């Protein structure tokens, strides 16, 4: 196993939230820079989930479902009328101010206040209109992004690769990596089916010549397609290349040991 053995016991406790004090701080510091221990942490949480899933008990009462659906419906209503509510509160301000003003205020002073409030009100209406436009615009962009992501990641989506006539489909992959946010999307196709007790592992080769960084284990589906999305990666690493290797089933994590299967053409 490639995780750091000195942290193995603490990692299990951390996965259950049972580690505290200095040991917890030391481990958290280590986890920031150790992808293999972060991967083992995910697995240990998975092991813990098995314990949780064995729990059997009564079903939740029907009122719990009603409570949830009512809260959701109410929240949807509130969010859909938020801009209107904002406008109402703005229009109430002049009335509040007016009633608080003592009766001895002169007509001229009142007129000045009214003009000032009218201007403020107009400005706020403009701000609300602008915000509505921005929210609608962002909502559209988000919806488009969600649709793209959902299509890319949907295991039931039809995937057909087009190749030059007469050519056989070759194993290939595409890595899209954003260093700033440590976002990585990797799509592979036409990969050979895995031999027994083997797995594919994606590696990031840093531009500074540092050691390769494990970027996720994966198994292709029956048609040889696979996806890796946002594996845990250290911060700020510039990528020179990506490589997929065939590794023992538990992965190699520290450095590639197996045969390269597909290699980036940029490196």
């Amino acid at each position, binding site marked *: 196993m490639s995780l750091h053995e000195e942290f*193995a*016991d*603490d*990692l*299990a*406790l951390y*996965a*259950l*939230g*049972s*580690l*505290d004090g200095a040991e917890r701080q030391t481990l958290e510091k280590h986890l920031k820079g150790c992808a293999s221990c972060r*991967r083992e942490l*995910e*697995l*240990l*949480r*998975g*092991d*813990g*989930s*098995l*314990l*949780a*899933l*064995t*729990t*059997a*008990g*009564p*079903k*939740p*009462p029907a009122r*719990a*479902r009603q*409570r*949830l*659906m009512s*809260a*959701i*419906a109410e*929240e*949807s209503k509130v969010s859909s009328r938020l801009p209107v509510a904002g406008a109402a509160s703005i229009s109430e301000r002049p009335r509040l101010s007016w009633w608080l003003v003592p009766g001895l205020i002169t007509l001229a002073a009142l007129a000045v206040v009214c003009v000032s409030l009218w201007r403020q009100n107009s400005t706020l209406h403009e701000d609300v209109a602008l915000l509505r436009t921005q929210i609608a615009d962002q909502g559209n962009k988000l*919806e488009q992004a*969600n649709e793209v992501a*959902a299509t890319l*990641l*949907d*295991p*039931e989506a039809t995937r057909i690769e087009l190749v030059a006539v007469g050519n056989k489909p070759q194993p290939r992959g595409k890595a899209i990596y954003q260093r700033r946010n440590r976002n990585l999307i990797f799509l592979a196709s036409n990969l050979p089916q895995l031999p027994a007790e083997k797995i594919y592992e994606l590696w990031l080769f840093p531009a500074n010549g540092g050691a390769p960084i494990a970027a996720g284990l994966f198994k292709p589906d029956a048609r040889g397609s696979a*996806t*890796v*999305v*946002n594996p*845990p990666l250290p911060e700020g690493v510039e990528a020179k290349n990506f490589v997929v290797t065939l590794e023992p089933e538990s992965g190699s994590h520290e450095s590639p040991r197996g045969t390269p299967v597909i290699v980036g053409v940029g490196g």
Partner: protein
Amino acid sequence: MSSVESNATTSDLALVTAIRSGDQGAMAALYDRFSSIVYAVALRVLQDTGAAEDVLQDIFMQLWRNPAAFDASRGNMASWLAVIARHRAIDALRRRRPQDDIEDVIVSVEPNLAVEADRSRAMDKVRGALQTMPAPQRSALEMAYFEGLTHVEIAEKTGEPLGTIKTRIRTGLLSLRKVLAA
């Protein structure tokens, strides 16, 4: 507003995608699919039906507000919700603020247990493994997992050395993994 059919063939990911567009029907379908798991875990930890219902409500409301917190490429919905339920229930038990954002919790289970029939078979195996596990080991694991005790608290409670407790918990967890891999 369109609604996703709440049948067993609709994938968890399709439901989450529909929830992202505000589909309340999809949320109801997801609740019907997983509320029993969340409630059972919360009830096991809290031993109080009212408190367990609060955890149930809290988790599904968070999922409604932030469906992107579930990342289908990093684990299956049942395992993820079970772990979140356990975390939130322990937080409630200890009367403390939530310790983790739900999107920070990543759970990996091999093989993937997204299909209920696979999950059911896997759970039979895990229950079998728990029954054959040495009693002190199972006890340490359950105290940590369902009572939210730290290893120091478990050592004090059982009178065992700290190192023994640590090792028991780790080997206990790993034995559950092995039984699935077998």
